[in-house]
């Protein structure tokens, strides 16, 4: 077996287990040291992953594991995201009795997201979704003594368990129809006349993956998790599984010829619904963390635009990857700011933040403007690439709706930024400091850097391909 092809995953898995055991043998005060271990293992995995970039794109492990540009870049993104989330954690969980196990859980969740990005077999897809979900519930409910966190975990669990079951049923249907769970085999078998059963099966699978993407119709957990989960965990859950799920979805739908299974209208509809519902939900929010959750849903809608265009335009996958990278950096910066502010979430509490903490206020501005897509930030390049790709693929109406949604989104981002700069400060603004602060500025630098250094990155991503 070509063990070398999954070395990054193995290293993440082994270090997760080692961290878990180490946490149970260490004193609670020393658990922050495990964060260093987690960062080291993530770095090692990233190096191993980057080494695969030079190799030709191929399917390994009897066709269940795709090693192509899309999966490698997505996994690098996930590893970087996880590293920033690890750095956000030590101060936040310092008094938690189970501090050390958090890192093990985070690494396992990252592993699930990585498996999603490389899945080229329906069984592999199910495994990846389940691993990433089961660890996600734990992360969301990590503040066991805080009711909202438990509630977020429970709601996440209920939506997740339901959609995971739908996913399994969908996989069963596809397996029953085509006699194989392998993407390449299904692609061979799926020919000829339109098949209604295949469409139903695919729809169920798409709903299962949409849960990880926080897309309609499985989006309801996202606002609750982003409000109730510990902010470092929310930062992770709003970003990392999405990266994996977007690539997994793109890889999944392209195996079906569009004339056998009409998946393009399906994904386009989901894209429109997701971005619109996300934006409408965010409009009236007076809770910043909840607002970020809704905005994260609408960002998933934009990502789905690229999935619609996959196969029609060679630039779709690079555009998707770039958009995901820019989104990850901006969203991480926003949640890092919330973490740094010790999780303050009420919009009224953000009044006058700019006078007390100008640095954090600036970070909020950068991240929100990047989420809207204002040049020269990373989000601008990502969205531009998405819109151009979608229009060239013949889905101009989709791009128009996305532009309208983007303009609407400006309103609620400004509703936060307005009080930050023009409100009156009441009371002191305590911050977390330490590692969280470094992670905050790193994410912000990445947001700006992705915009300024877009060109070399883009030409690198342009060579990316998607198997099978």
């Amino acid at each position: 077996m070509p063990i070398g092809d999954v070395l990054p995953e193995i290293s993440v898995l082994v270090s997760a287990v080692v961290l878990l055991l180490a946490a149970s043998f260490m004193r609670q005060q020393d658990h922050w040291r495990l964060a260093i271990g987690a960062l080291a293992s993530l770095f090692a995995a990233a190096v191993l992953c980057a080494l695969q970039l030079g190799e030709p794109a191929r399917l390994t492990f009897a066709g269940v594991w795709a090693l192509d540009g899309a999966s490698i870049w997505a996994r690098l993104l996930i590893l970087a995201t996880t590293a920033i989330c690890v750095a956000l954690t030590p101060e936040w969980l310092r008094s938690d009795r189970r501090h050390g196990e958090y890192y093990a859980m985070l690494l396992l969740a990252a592993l699930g997201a990585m498996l999603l990005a490389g899945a080229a077999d329906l069984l592999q897809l199910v495994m990846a979704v389940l691993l990433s979900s089961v660890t996600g519930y734990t992360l969301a409910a990590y503040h066991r003594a805080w009711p909202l966190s438990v509630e977020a975990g429970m709601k996440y669990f209920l939506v997740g368990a339901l959609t995971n079951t739908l996913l399994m049923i969908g996989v069963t249907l596809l397996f029953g129809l085509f006699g194989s769970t392998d993407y390449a085999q299904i692609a061979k078998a799926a020919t000829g006349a339109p098949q209604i059963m295949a469409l139903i099966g695919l729809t169920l699978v798409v709903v299962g993956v949409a849960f990880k993407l926080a897309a309609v119709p499985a989006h309801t957990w996202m606002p609750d998790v982003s409000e109730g989960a510990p902010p470092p965990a929310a930062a992770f859950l709003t970003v990392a599984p999405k990266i994996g799920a977007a690539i997994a979805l793109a890889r999944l739908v392209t195996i079906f010829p569009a004339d056998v299974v009409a998946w393009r209208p399906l994904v386009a509809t989901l894209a429109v619904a997701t971005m619109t519902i996300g934006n409408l939900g965010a409009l009236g929010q007076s809770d910043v963390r909840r607002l970020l959750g809704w905005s994260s849903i609408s960002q998933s809608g934009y990502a789905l635009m690229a999935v619609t265009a996959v196969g029609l335009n060679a630039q779709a996958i690079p555009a998707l990857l770039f958009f995901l990278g820019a989104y990850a950096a901006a969203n991480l910066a926003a949640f890092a700011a919330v973490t740094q502010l010790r999780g303050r979430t009420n919009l009224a509490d953000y009044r006058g933040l700019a006078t007390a903490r100008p640095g954090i206020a600036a970070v909020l501005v950068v991240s929100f403007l990047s989420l809207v897509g204002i040049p020269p930030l990373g989000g601008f390049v990502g969205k531009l690439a998405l819109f151009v790709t979608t229009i060239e693929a013949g889905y101009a109406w989709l791009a128009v709706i996305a532009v309208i949604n983007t303009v609407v989104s400006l309103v609620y981002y400004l509703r936060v930024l307005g009080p930050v700069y023009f409100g009156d400060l009441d009371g002191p603004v305590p911050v977390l400091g330490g590692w969280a602060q470094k992670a905050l500025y790193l994410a912000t630098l990445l947001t700006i850097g992705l915009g300024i250094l877009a060109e070399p990155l883009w030409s690198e991503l342009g060579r990316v391909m998607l198997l099978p």
Partner: protein
Amino acid sequence: MEPAVQHTVVIWPLILFLVAALGLVTVMLGLSYVLGGRHDNRLGNQPYESGIKPTGSARTKFSAKFYLVAIIFVLFDLEIVFIFSWAISARDLGWVGYEAFLTFLFDLTLGFAYAWKIGALDWSPRAPRQLRLDAIESNQQRNLPSEQTS
């Protein structure tokens, strides 16, 4: 084989089982009805003819600790299924399969060690003496110049 014949072949044990199960229940209930004594007096219908009358509900709460043990049992129990699927084809899988099996067992052991270490397997609350010692220790720690950076 004819489909109809096949069906009778498949189904008769089921019918036999059903008849046997129903028959057993009927025999047990019927025999005790016929042979058992009857008490029609009022006292005889009370739960205990002598002693104390029952108080309170039967639905008492019991420690959630047992759920934890049960959950861990279910999780480890299910892993046997994987060992089964290895066992039935152990000969064909050869040494590679054996190594995979050992790796699997090793992973299970790691999980077990973790569950043990964090005290998930402690059936009862810790011994009172240990609790006292812990209390003394934590008091001492609290009185020391604070080690914790806060």
